[in-house]
């Protein structure tokens, strides 16, 4: 038994248990402390990543860890830690300090972390379910609020369809291959194709790509905003790293390319247009996340080092931009009667200048303006697509990016170019939130100017 391979997960599990017991015995007064400790757990688990020698495997090859899964794990842990730091003040202000939040989020991360190193469909299924079920609960954290319950229920129902598809697809896969291990399979077999189709659909549902996106806007809107920050970043990171791995194994089978292109083009354009009709910034960001699912899916059309590395880089920095913007939304939401409607954003640039500047930094980053790091991902993906001869796809990507620019600008216009009609009290930014926003901004900017550190790592992992 090679314990080394599951060292990070072990570390995280022990931490989760500690937090679990702490939650039992600490009183509500110490809510802040509890969340803080919980936030430290994943950050400390990052250290354990350095002890893992790659590539390594455990449980008879069910679990396989290579450099790229380590990168994914590092990102997931970092995001989990940051979203926990950003959440305590929000829940205190909303006077719903549920301690469960702390270990649920850690459990979800544990699931995601297992997901990226699963080399077997059974483990893939289990880890994805561990993450998904905890996320259903997390979304429903505001149990007294209708929207939160509805979001949780909706995600549960639609997510279960995904679960069923994954299970069913795995069954077909087993029927065709005779094993649940993920590996290359050259034969053109209807059963196998059907299995892959279902598995891919299930994963597309989890990354909220059109036509499986229906849960996204509601779940994102209904969830408490710090939770939205988490569910819109960490699972995405895990799933795309997994999808890249799957692209390496299966992208040469017939139908993969067509299916991925279809999913991606639909997501880019559908979400791009629907986003314009949104009146709520939170929903708008949800649709932007669907559109980005389309961009990222372009990165797994085929397996190619240049294209995949660009996509993974894009994804990693995108996660920080999204995390940062949702944390800012959470800060704003702490105010009385704030609804995320555009009208509530009017004049934000005047009375909360710094928050507005950071939010527009993240939005400009998502548009893809240099020197923010997302632009390098875009450039890399352009180069990769052209190199592989997918010029039409690159052009579609370009068109979708232009369309997307308009709705991000809308938010910026409301923040800076319109005067506010209501008197808002000044937003209170807690230490945790300020820290997270700063870290995200620094990442987005510095990785744009000096992408070397991360880019080299991703290239090494592929």
């Amino acid at each position: 038994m090679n314990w080394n391979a599951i060292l990070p997960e072990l570390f995280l599990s022990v931490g989760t248990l500690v937090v679990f017991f702490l939650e039992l015995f600490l009183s509500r007064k110490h809510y802040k402390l509890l969340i803080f400790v919980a936030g430290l757990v994943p950050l400390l688990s990052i250290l354990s990543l350095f002890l893992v020698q790659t590539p390594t495997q455990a449980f008879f090859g069910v679990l396989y860890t290579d450099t790229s899964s380590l990168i994914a794990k590092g990102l997931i842990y970092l995001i989990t830690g940051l979203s926990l730091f950003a959440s305590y003040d929000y829940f205190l202000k909303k006077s719903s300090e549920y301690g469960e939040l702390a270990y649920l989020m850690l459990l979800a991360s544990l699931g995601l972390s297992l997901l990226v190193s699963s080399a077997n469909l059974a483990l893939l299924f289990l880890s994805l379910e561990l993450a998904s079920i905890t996320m259903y609960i997390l979304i429903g954290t505001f149990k007294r609020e209708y929207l939160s319950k509805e979001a949780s229920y909706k995600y549960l129902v639609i997510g279960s369809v995904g679960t069923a598809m994954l299970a069913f697809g795995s069954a077909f896969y087993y029927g065709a291959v005779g094993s649940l291990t993920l590996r290359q399979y050259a034969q053109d077999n209807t059963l196998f194709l059907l299995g892959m189709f279902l598995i891919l659909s299930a994963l597309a549902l989890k990354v909220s790509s059109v036509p499986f996106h229906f849960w996204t806007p509601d779940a994102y809107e209904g969830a408490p905003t710090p939770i939205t920050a988490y569910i819109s970043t960490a699972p995405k990171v895990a799933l795309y790293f997994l999808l890249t791995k799957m692209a390496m194994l299966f992208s040469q089978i017939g139908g993969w390319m067509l299916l991925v292109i279809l999913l991606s083009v639909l997501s880019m354009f559908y979400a791009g247009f629907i986003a314009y009709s949104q009146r709520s910034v939170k929903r708008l960001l949800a649709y932007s996340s669907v559109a980005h699912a389309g961009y990222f899916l372009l990165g797994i059309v085929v397996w190619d080092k240049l294209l995949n590395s660009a996509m993974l880089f894009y994804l990693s920095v995108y996660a920080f931009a999204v995390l940062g913007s949702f944390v800012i939304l959470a800060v704003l939401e702490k105010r009385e009667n704030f609804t995320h409607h555009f009208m509530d954003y009017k004049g934000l640039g005047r009375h909360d200048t710094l928050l507005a500047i950071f939010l527009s930094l993240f939005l400009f980053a998502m548009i893809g303006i240099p020197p923010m790091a997302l632009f390098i991902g875009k450039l890399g993906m352009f180069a990769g697509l052209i190199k592989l001869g997918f010029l039409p796809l690159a052009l579609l990507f370009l068109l979708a990016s232009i369309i997307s620019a308009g709705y991000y600008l809308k938010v910026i216009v409301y923040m800076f170019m319109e005067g506010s009609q209501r008197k808002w009290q000044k937003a209170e930014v807690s230490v945790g939130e300020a820290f997270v926003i700063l870290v995200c901004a620094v990442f987005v900017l510095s990785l744009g100017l000096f992408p070397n550190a991360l880019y080299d790592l991703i290239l090494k992992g592929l």
Partner: protein
Amino acid sequence: MLSVAIFLPLLAGILILLVRREKFSKMLSLLTSGVVLLLVLSLFLGFDWSKAGFQYETKYTWIPTLGISYHVGVDGMAISLLLMTAIMFFASFIWSWKVEDRPNLYHALFLMLETACLGVFSALDFFLFYIFWEGMLIPMYFIIGLWGHERKVYAANKFFVYTFFGSLFLLLGIASLIAYAYINTGQISFDYAFHKNFSYPLWLQLLAFLLFGIGFAVKIPMWPVHTWLPDAHVEAPTAGSVILAAVLLKMGTYGFVRYSLPLFPEASKYYIPLIFILSLVAIVYAAMMAIAQTHIKRLIAYSSISHMGIVTLGTFASDINALNGAIYMMIAHGLSSATLFMSAGFIYDRIHSYHMDDLGGLARYLPKLAVVFMISGLAGIGFPGLAGFVAEFLVFLGTFKNFPLWAFIAGTGMILSAAYFLYMYKKVMFEEETISEYRLEKWKYLKDLELHHFVPFVLILACAFLLGIYPLPFVKIVEQTSRYILGG
């Protein structure tokens, strides 16, 4: 020294945002732009036009994995445009001495814009170039959107989306070159020199020329992607219009000369008919549109489109004189359009209207303005003795040699330009019969040009005279680039 000049404004801009004192902002921006002007002027004077290639080059490895380096350097065209940019920003800061609305942010944004503009003209690495190219987008967006007139949000968004549309095509073009070079040499490189020595097959040239061309055409702007310009100009504050017309529009034509011509020589020949048709439509159609305007800023904006048509015509006429003229025209148009927009802005400051119907007989009340407005206009329409004349003469001389018919049609644009300018001048400065007694009574107390208006005017018009009366050294300097591109 070049790098210092590029990044000094950015540092000053950040400092201004940190300190946030009105007086400090104004002093510091004036000082910074002055220092930059002196730096660029010293580079300009030290520039050796007899040597081929780039000068004052600096190169540092930046992102080795992607073959990106920090590489700046200038040739004859770049140094001239840099000097013009530095003059324009210096002049705009003097002009903006009395800005009252959020002065700190205003000056900080202008300083950031200056860094981006200087950077575009001196970058020799695609990645760096693109960062500067897009870096100008955000400051300009906020300058139009925050300090503009009634429909500022519409204009700012239109400006942003159009320009972003163009830039993404440019990005795709860059990516296609990188990808092609990567497939064939196994090496990713964003360096300009690397790609210049690389000969691309015709199909890629044709494709990349179009992708680059769309990016540049939006910025110039060429017909039919010009519609953002009149709106942006009408709504922008005066200093924003000045920078937009004098500097930002030149980025597109600069891109054509710097990238399209040397990188895609065959495609540039292939697309001559297309470019010529678009240029001619721009020259004639925009000039006719200008005649039909009653809004003075919109009129000047259309005149800009018309003049930029002459630049694109000269750029692709495959003649050294025409190319010289095109580059000279970039400078000349920068000088004349800047002063025209300053005049229009001054009129708005005093009378609060841009509409010719509300104006008339101003020559009696604002005599100093009447003089500088006339000189600016004459510089714009290519009056002998001013910069525009030399430029237009060279462009037509060169174009006529190879394409006499095209040159002839383009020449009609010159007549139209005289028509619209004189028509505007008549409406604004003379014709007081149409103005009500009440207004004329009020206008008796109008204050003419103040010092902070007068200095920029004198500075820029002096340059226009210098370039018009003694063009030889300047033509020599821009010829350094033309020789390098056309090989002669």
